[in-house]
């Protein structure tokens, strides 16, 4: 009963609140048509996606022996989260922290650069007419299809000739290309920046770059956040590229570092029992991105929604 009321109120608000973005409230709206079956199905799916992460969290509170002797989905043995964290941040002279920092630097520099390049290019495609526009845009779209890992090998060879392997640049520079980002920004800018506004700025005598910086960038907020976050994840989670480019473990990002710890752990020869360290490290390493996505969800979701994927 109450559920019917709240859903009614909600739809009313939506249609009254003059501007609920592209779509006005739906008329066929679910007047009390909430489906129990659907709710159950949805939450069952949620379990599938969340339980492994729950396991990861629970396991990061266990020491090595409890890890292998207690039920995986619930706490057991001593609560060893603090000891695990201590081990994690002191193992091999605290290299884990170093890996975290590397990941931050690689991901932020790459994402900022990729976003800037993609935004300028996308804006240009959306707001200007020029010879060769179609060709260049097709080339960009086609590049979405090129598997970056197939490029990684020749890129590695080129970089090693240039003496760039085993430097942070080897990870950052290839991550600056984001054809998908250009595509997203083009569609987003086409919608978000009215031509009239640009014309008006021109009439006022503003130069093209000033218009981009002062009019364009301001209206592109959610699009920027979206492209930034998605490039951030791409670099943050990348494993193949840093794996082949970097040799020194103090330059590793978290992915390569964790994989190395894991293989040391399963090789078994090591004196340290590293399993709980690997698990705690995995848990700690996913926190920043998860938090970023949760906090910025309003922006990136509207960045995707308002035209981001209209094609």
């Amino acid at each position, binding site marked *: 009963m109450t559920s019917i009321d709240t859903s009614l109120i909600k739809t009313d608000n939506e249609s009254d609140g003059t501007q609920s973005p592209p779509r006005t409230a739906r008329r066929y709206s679910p007047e009390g048509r909430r489906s129990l079956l659907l709710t159950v199905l*949805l939450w069952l799916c949620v379990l599938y996606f969340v339980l492994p992460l729950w396991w990861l969290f629970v396991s990061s509170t266990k020491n090595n022996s409890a890890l292998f002797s207690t039920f995986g989905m619930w706490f057991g043995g001593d609560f060893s989260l603090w000891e695990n964290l201590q081990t994690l941040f002191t193992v091999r002279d605290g290299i884990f922290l170093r890996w975290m920092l590397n990941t931050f630097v690689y991901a932020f520099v790459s994402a900022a650069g990729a976003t*800037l390049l993609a935004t300028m290019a996308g804006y240009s*495609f959306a707001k200007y007419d*020029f010879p060769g526009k179609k060709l260049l845009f097709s080339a960009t779209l086609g590049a979405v299809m090129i*598997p970056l890992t197939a490029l990684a090998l020749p890129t590695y060879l*080129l970089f090693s000739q240039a003496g760039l392997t085993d430097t942070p640049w080897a990870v950052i520079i290839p991550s600056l290309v984001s054809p998908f980002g250009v595509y997203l920004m083009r569609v987003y800018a086409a919608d978000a920046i009215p031509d009239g506004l640009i014309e008006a700025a021109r009439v006022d005598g503003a130069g093209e770059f000033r218009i981009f910086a002062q009019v364009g960038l301001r209206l592109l907020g959610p699009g920027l956040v979206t492209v930034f976050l998605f490039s951030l994840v791409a670099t943050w989670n990348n494993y193949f590229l840093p794996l082949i480019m970097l040799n020194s473990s103090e330059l590793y990002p978290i992915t390569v570092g964790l994989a190395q710890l894991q293989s040391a752990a399963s090789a078994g020869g090591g004196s340290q029992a590293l399993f709980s360290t690997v698990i705690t490290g995995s848990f700690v390493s996913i926190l920043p991105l998860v938090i970023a996505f949760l906090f910025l969800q309003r922006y990136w979701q509207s960045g995707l929604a308002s035209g981001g994927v209209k094609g």
Partner: protein
Amino acid sequence: MTHSPALASERPASAPPLKKRANPMKRKQRLAAYLFLVPFFIVFITMLVVPLVYAGYLSLFESKLIGGDVFAGLANYVRALTDSAFLAGLGRVGLFFIIQVPIMLGLALFLALALDSARGRGSKAVRLLIFVPYAVPAVVATLMWGYLYGPDFGPIAQISRAVGLGTPDFLSPESILGSMMNIVTWEFVGYNMIIMYAALRSIPAELYEAAEIDGAGQFRLAWSIKIPAIRPALMLTVIFSIIGSFQLFAEPSLLNAIAPDAISTSFTPNYYAYNLAFINQELNYAAAIAFLLGVVIAIVSYFVQLAGERRERVGLAERGIEP
């Protein structure tokens, strides 16, 4: 002054001598347009075009113990196309693609439609929780599932034993591909769902009105209006999935440590290329493999897109079909 020259110059511009040169205002804008593109295309060319060409070049050579690099023509390609390890890997990712991608995208589409219909409770929380795995690196996801699959202490085996079903072996040679499909599905359903959901949210309300008058139900609405309307977004997720499946790397390379008997060094073409280049030092052959893999992905993507476009043209797609 600012207005009239722009207007005035448009007429005489059609006269032959002036035709080629747009008016100064337009020229300035064109210049700006190109300048905005330059930074992206510099990186684009150096990081995409050059490596691609270089891979093609490298793949035409052979490294001999005596004599160094020798031009080999298409020998590396002939070798790859008769290399049972490479072909088996390609077959494996092909199988992976055919089975895993429909499951993953089907589930994502179901979830996106369910969330869009707003008939479940707590849809906002559902949406975010399903998306979370996307923020988990493939490395961590694989490590985690590796532990979850564990036959002795993994929770799945623990539960299975507790209810008397015995110990399932997720890491045997027969089941490892399926286990890998599960990992990738877990990672990417949320990402695809969000893309589809975003597209669903931007369908203009007018499209629903006629259906509403006809009294179409939710399923009819989804099938006849929503799915056709988000076809471009669906195509995007399909293309990304093709690329993703054909270049699987992190999952096989990490599972190899847990299940070395089930995962060979040529389990996927990408993993094979890596092992060829960095373990066997066969750079030229590895380049040929990488290049071929790129070609295969491009061909598959092209045909999938073609099939999609044809269906779109046949169906009634009056919604903004832009290039």
